[in-house]
């Protein structure tokens, strides 16, 4: 992974499109569009209702993962090794069923942005006291 010849894991080999697409259709009953707009960074947490019995294995896993900690859509897809589109469809269904929820309201102002930027700098410096930032 650290090889200087450049083995970026995500591009090292050609992707097997067919396998991905088969998995996509298999878990979503052929649906490729989610009802909710979910971005890759949309954070999901547990909903107020327990998931109904008889859910697909993948949906059960999603509810479990979000019950452990809040997770963004991209992380769910990567963890389950499913295409983002497939996970979006499943997550949408789970939101409608009340088994998942968006825990963090996506509202931002200029001021809160600046506060967040300062919080990131402070946190990174605390974790990496030897990190040196280039001025400007």
């Amino acid at each position: 992974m650290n090889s200087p010849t450049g083995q970026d894991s995500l591009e090292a080999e050609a992707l097997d499109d067919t396998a991905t697409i088969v998995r996509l259709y298999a878990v979503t009953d052929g649906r490729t569009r989610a009802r909710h707009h979910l971005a890759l960074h949309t954070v999901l947490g547990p909903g107020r209702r327990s998931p109904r019995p008889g859910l697909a294995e993948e949906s059960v896993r999603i509810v479990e993962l979000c019950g452990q900690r809040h997770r963004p859509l991209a992380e769910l897809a990567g963890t389950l090794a499913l295409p983002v589109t497939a996970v979006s469809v499943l997550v949408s269904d789970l939101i409608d069923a009340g088994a998942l929820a968006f825990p963090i309201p996506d509202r931002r102002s200029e001021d809160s942005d600046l506060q967040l930027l300062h919080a990131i700098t402070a946190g990174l410096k605390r974790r990496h006291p030897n990190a040196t930032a280039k001025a400007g």
Partner: protein
Amino acid sequence: MTQFPQPATRATAKLVIAGGFGVGKTTAIGAVSDITPLRTEEVLTTQSTATDSLRGIEDKTTTTVAFDFGRVGWDVPDPVELYLFGTPGQPRFWSFWHDLSEGALGAVVLADTRRLESSFPAADFFEQLGLPFVIAINRFPGTTPRTAVEIREAFDVDEQVPLMFCDARNADSVAGVLITLVQHIANTKSANSALLDA
């Protein structure tokens, strides 16, 4: 179901790590991430350039692209969870680069002196998008040193764009790049609001 402590109050932020093939994006994300970077796939449907246009048949082509995802979080001094998204090498699918950059605060354009040009499209993309970015040159052992001035000239970006050297394998080095980026975003925002106030 086991309940783990919920980092429910963590504010989330998204940063993008871009650059050409093999410049060390996955390595850089792995250096600072709390989790091993996840390779995540997305399926894109594109209208293929019709070889059959005479017959009026428009073929849809389905392509899979992959990106990296990593995250790093903390609760002190302020609870934050930082999401790191590594782009596919070339911005061949512009719509997907837009999806990856949606909601991002800023980006790192990672480059390798042996093939700087492979990272030019990433710098051009963020410049056009108006998303603040920094250029970080990943030092590979045994490469011919090039000066920051030479590299900046090659990239032909605004002189406000910070440019630095780093080691993508080293957590402190990558953290330094991220701190520089976040400070640059803050400076850009302050400068913009000063302009609006004037």
